[in-house]
C-alpha cells in the first residue's frame, strides 16, 4: 500500500483502481437504499452518502483492517469503505435478522466489529469520545492501531468534540478527527452555525489541522495517510477537514430543498465535482483504465448491490422474542 511517486497518479495503481471501485460500490449502494425507501421497503429514514464517497474511501484506504473507525448517521459509505459486506448491510437497513446488528440498529447504528467499524451514531458528534477512547485503548494495549473519527461539520457545535481533542493532544493518542464539511447542518448552511475557520478549530488544542479537497480521493488518501502515520508513530492526533457535498437531501425524504440551497449549486457540484467522474477521468487520462473497464466496474458493483438487495428482501425478520436479547451481556 506504499505511495509511489513514480506511478502516474502519485499512488499505487492498484490502490487507485480499488478506490474507484469502492466509490462506485458506495454510490450504487446508496442509490439502491434510496430506491428501497421510495418503494416503501425500508422502515424509517436514511441519510445518503452520495457525493462524499471520496472521503470515506480515501480515508479507509489509509487504514489497516485492524484499525478502527467511528461513523455517523450518514454512515453507509464509511461502513462499506472499511470493508463491510453488502448483504449484511442491506439486511440491517431493512431490519432483518441477518443484518450486522440483527435488525436492532438499522441505518443509523450499523457497526461492523470484524472490520473495526465501532458504529454509526445518531447523536451528532456522539462518537468522538468512543473514537478517542479506542485510541487510548490501542495505546494502553500496546498495539499500533489508529482510529479515524468521521463526523460532519455540524458536530463542531458539540462541546464533546473539544473535550476529547484536548485529551487526545495531551496524551498523544493515535486518532484522526476527520471532519466532512458537506456545507450543511441538515437544512442550514454551516456558515450560519460555525464561527471562525473550520480548519482552525483544533489548533487551540495543539492539534495540527489540514484541509483537503474531499472530492479528490487521491488527495484525501494522501492526507489521511500522513495523519495515520503520525498517529501510528506516537505523534498524536490530527484534524483533517475534507470539503465535500451531499448530492441528495439531508435524508431520503428531503426532496424539496429549494428553501435552503439552489439547484444551481447542486448542479455545479454534481457536474464539476463528482469524485467518481473525477477519478475516472484521471484513470483514463493516465491510461490506467479504459472507459469500458470503468463501465464494467460499475456493472459489477450494480450486480453486487442488486444481489444484496435481493438477499435482504428475502431475509426473515428477527423473531419477536429477540426484542429482549442483547440488553445485557
Amino acid at each position, binding site marked *: 500500500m506504499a505511495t509511489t511517486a513514480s506511478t502516474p497518479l502519485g499512488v499505487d495503481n492498484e490502490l487507485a483502481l480499488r478506490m474507484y471501485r469502492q466509490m462506485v460500490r458506495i454510490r450504487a449502494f446508496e442509490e439502491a437504499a434510496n430506491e428501497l425507501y421510495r418503494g416503501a421497503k425500508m*422502515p*424509517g429514514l436514511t441519510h445518503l452518502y452520495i457525493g462524499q464517497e471520496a472521503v470515506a474511501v480515501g480515508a479507509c484506504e489509509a487504514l489497516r483492517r485492524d484499525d478502527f473507525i467511528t461513523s455517523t448517521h450518514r454512515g453507509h459509505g464509511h461502513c462499506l469503505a472499511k470493508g463491510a459486506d453488502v448483504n449484511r448491510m442491506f439486511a440491517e437497513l431493512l431490519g432483518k435478522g441477518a443484518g450486522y446488528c440483527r435488525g436492532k440498529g438499522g441505518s*443509523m447504528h450499523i457497526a461492523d466489529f470484524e472490520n473495526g467499524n465501532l458504529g454509526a451514531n*445518531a447523536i451528532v458528534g456522539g462518537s468522538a469520545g468512543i473514537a478517542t477512547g479506542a485510541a487510548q485503548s490501542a495505546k494502553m494495549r500496546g498495539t499500533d492501531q489508529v482510529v479515524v473519527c468521521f463526523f460532519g461539520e455540524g458536530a463542531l457545535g*458539540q462541546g464533546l468534540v473539544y473535550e476529547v481533542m484536548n485529551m487526545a493532544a495531551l496524551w498523544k493518542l493515535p486518532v484522526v478527527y476527520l471532519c466532512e464539511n458537506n456545507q450543511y*447542518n441538515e*437544512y442550514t448552511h454551516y456558515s450560519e452555525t460555525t464561527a471562525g475557520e473550520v480548519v482552525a478549530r483544533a489548533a487551540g488544542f495543539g492539534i495540527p489541522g489540514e484541509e483537503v479537497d474531499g472530492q479528490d480521493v487521491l488527495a484525501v488518501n494522501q492526507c489521511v495517510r500522513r495523519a495515520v502515520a503520525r498517529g501510528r508513530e506516537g505523534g498524536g492526533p490530527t484534524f483533517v477537514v475534507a470539503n465535500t457535498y451531499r448530492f441528495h437531501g439531508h435524508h431520503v425524504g428531503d426532496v424539496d430543498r429549494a428553501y435552503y440551497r439552489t439547484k444551481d449549486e447542486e448542479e455545479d457540484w454534481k457536474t464539476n465535482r463528482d469524485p467518481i467522474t473525477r477519478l475516472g477521468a484521471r484513470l483514463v487520462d493516465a491510461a490506467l483504465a479504459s472507459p469500458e473497464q470503468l463501465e464494467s466496474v460499475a456493472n459489477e458493483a450494480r450486480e453486487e448491490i442488486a444481489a444484496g438487495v435481493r438477499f435482504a428482501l428475502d431475509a426473515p*425478520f428477527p423473531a419477536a422474542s429477540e426484542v429482549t436479547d442483547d440488553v445485557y451481556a
Partner: protein
Amino acid sequence: MSTLETQAPSGTRVITQSQAVNEALAEELRRDSTVYIIGEDVAEAGTPFKVMSGLVEEFGPERVIDSPISEPGITGLALGAAMTGMRPVVDIMFGDFLTLIMDQLVNQAAKIRYMSGGHFKAPLTVRTTLGATRRSAAQHSQSLHAWVAHVPGLKVALPATPADAKGLMKAAIRDDNPVVIFEDKMNFATKGPVPDDDDLVLPLGVADVKREGEDVTIVATSSMVYVALEAADLLAGDGISAEVVDPRTLVPLDRDGLIRSAQKTGRVVVVDEGHQSYGASAELAATIAAGAFWELDAPVQRAGALDVPIPFSPVLEDQTVPTGESVYELAKGLVR
C-alpha cells in the same frame, strides 16, 4: 372535557397537533416581545417536522433563531436570557437529546430560583418530543419525561390532544418557571377540535378525564391516551366501562384527580410510554396505590415501554410499546 372528537363542536376548529403548537407559538410571539425561539433548523426549515412553518417569516430571524447543533449551549443561553428579562422557547429536536442538556436544565435552570433565595426567575420553555414506533431506533425514540419530573424546580407537560398541546404550550411560555413540554412525534398529524380562543391557556396541574367510566380507571399520558381510549372501546365490547384519565402535567401532578377516579372504580391501569422501570408510571401507580389503598379491589397495573433500548426492526419495535390490545388485556385481567 373530552377533546377527542374530530368533528368540530361549535366554537372550535379541527386542526392538527402540529398546527395547534404552531398557533400557540405564533400567538405568544405576537403578544409578548420577550418571547423568542431558539433551536436547530427552527427558522427556514420550520423544524424537521415542520411544526414551526411560517414563524420566521412573520417574526424574523432575530426571534426564530437557527442555532448550531449545541443543545447544552442553547439551553444555557436561554437560561441566561430568561434570567435577564426574556422568555425563550428552546427547541430540542428529539427528546433523546435531553441527555445533553441535563446539566443546564437540572443543575442550572431548575435550581436558580431556589439557590438565589427567590431573587432570580427562569421563565424558560423547553419544547421536545417523546415516543417510539417511528423506526428511528434507540437514540431517537426515547420518552425521558420521568427524569425531568424527578427534578424539583422543573414543570413537565405532556399534551395528548391538539387543544391540550396549544393550551399547555401557552401556559408553559407564560409560566415563570422552566417548563419542559413533550410532544409525541407520532401525533403531529393527529387532529382534534381546538377552541377558537387566542387566550387558550390551560392550568398546569389539572388532570383531564378523557372518557368517563365506572369499572376501571386507565391513567394514560401523552399519546398513550389514544391507546387507552382504544382499550376502553374494547372493554366496552365486553360490557366493562373504563374511565380514561390524563394527568396532562406530571409536575405539578393532580394527585387528587387520579386518586378520586381510582377510588370510584377500584381498579387502575397506568399507561405511559417511558420505560416501565423507574418511570413515570411508577410514581403514578405508587401514588394511587397508597392514596386509594382502602378502595382498591386489585393491584394497580402498569404498562410502560419494555425495559430495552428501542430496536429498529419494526417487528421488534412493535413489541416495546403498550397497545390498545395489551392495555385491554391488562384491564380486563383486573376486572375478571
